[in-house]
């Protein structure tokens, strides 16, 4: 474990140095993300302040959904950015090199390129999260603890999805599009799932993990999530992670090293 943490720190440090070599890009990238966040926030404020509520949630609660989606999105992208580069490793044959190293190829493929650029916007976002929670009021310590646990659980679901994508990458060299589907799918959770009409809201709750990733943590901190919901979220992530690991092992057995 210690070896892997040390390796992760070294790899992240290298990637950060590369990222900051192009300062122009860093500034524009960060600014673009902030603008995107602010504009959607303005949109939500505009319509919900007029209607007073959205699908039964107040303005600050709706904002909490949006902030929670962004936290999960940023943390996932920070840790798992290397997945976006995986296709090139397969196509160029560099993946063979990873397999020969005394290091888990899955670990290297998932965490080998944590990009600090993704994390820059997280600090102000966390500050904003505290402000939003304060505005909502009536938040309990137990609710916050459950919120954090469910956020970690959301990351596990995201991790499982990325492992599936890596497996897919090994078998059919398809990575980018699968990742984008995942991102757009989770983006549906920017607003409360209750907004979507049946059967879409049912699909987002029971088939796709959007509710377990974004809706459940928010409902937990608001004190309106049932224990069945909590249990469902953890069971879902556990099954999803195990299934993704099995798929990864299956994919490795199919790997033909055709590109090298």
């Amino acid at each position, binding site marked *: 474990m210690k070896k892997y943490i040390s390796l992760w720190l070294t790899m992240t440090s290298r990637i950060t140095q590369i990222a900051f070599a*192009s300062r*122009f890009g860093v500034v524009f*990238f960060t600014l*673009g993300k902030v*603008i995107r966040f602010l504009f959607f926030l303005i949109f939500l404020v505009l319509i919900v302040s007029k209607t007073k509520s959205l699908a039964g949630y107040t303005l600050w609660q709706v904002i909490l959904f949006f902030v929670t989606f962004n936290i999960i999105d940023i943390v996932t992208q920070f840790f798992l950015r290397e997945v976006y580069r995986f296709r090139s490793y397969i196509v160029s044959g560099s993946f063979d090199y990873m397999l020969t190293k005394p290091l888990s190829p899955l670990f290297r493929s998932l965490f080998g390129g944590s990009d600090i650029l993704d994390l820059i916007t997280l600090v102000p976002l966390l500050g904003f999260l505290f402000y939003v929670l304060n505005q909502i009021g009536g938040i309990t310590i137990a609710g916050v603890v459950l919120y954090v646990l469910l956020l970690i659980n959301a990351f596990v679901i995201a991790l499982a999805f990325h492992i599936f994508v890596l497996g897919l990458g090994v078998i059919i060299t*398809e990575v980018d*599009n699968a990742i984008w589907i995942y991102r757009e799918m989770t*983006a549906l959770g*920017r607003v409360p799932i209750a907004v979507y009409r049946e059967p879409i809201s049912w699909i987002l709750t029971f088939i796709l993990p959007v509710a377990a990733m974004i809706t459940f943590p928010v409902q937990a901190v608001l004190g309106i999530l049932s224990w069945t919901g909590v249990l469902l979220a953890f069971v879902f992530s556990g099954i999803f992670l195990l299934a993704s690991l099995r798929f990864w092992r299956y994919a490795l057995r199919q790997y033909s090293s055709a590109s090298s």
Partner: protein
Amino acid sequence: MKLYWQIAKNTWDQAVAYRASFVIYRLRNILWVLTLYFLWIVVLPENTTLFGYNRAQIITYVLGTSLLSSVVLATRSQDIASDINEGNLSNFLLRPMGFFRYHFARDLGDKAMNISFAVVEIAVLFFFLRPPLFLQTNLFILFLTLLAIAVGVVLFFFFGVLLGLIGFWSNETWGPRFIFYQLLTFFAGNLFPLDILPKQVFRFIELLPFPYLLYFPMKVYLGQLAPLAVYKGISIAVVWVFLMYGITRFVWLKGLRVYTAQGR
């Protein structure tokens, strides 16, 4: 003309060659439209109005801007920067064709591909959601809408080229393009109709070129603008087209002077 027709056709063929990427790109668009669609359905129950829009008008706006994005915002101009950075522009400079016309033809090919997909998507959404839609029947308003869209297409073309020309001075052109698209989503009215903003903010945005890409053509289609406002809007957009043409041409000529065919 035949040459540029062939260029547009080649761009179409390129998009067909990378079908999976293109389909996923369109799928992302559908998910985005779905978010906005359901959001508006919830905030605007039947027989109510909000910000001066009834349900049919706002849903028409959401689906209409989605379709319009495929017409106005579809572009291949992102390739200009890589052509410059990799030195491929040299090949182009030796050929007997105009730079602007060549890229406009490519844009048209890309737009044709996007439009055909968008029409199918809207048809599928219509089949499953049965959304309340506002159908414009006034032929003159439809003509003015088409005119506004045509001006928007030309206006956006110059923005796309201008962003690509940054490649003459920097390898990092994706950053400015990323910011531009974020600004565009908001100021062009892709997120919501701009007239729901506070009046002073809206009046300022009206002077920018962005609303004339999506918001303005949709407002013309919905018949919510007085004739004078339509002519004023089209006039402002045309002024922006000439301004953007001048700027783009100036930057192109400046860029050619610093071009070193690096990478060849």
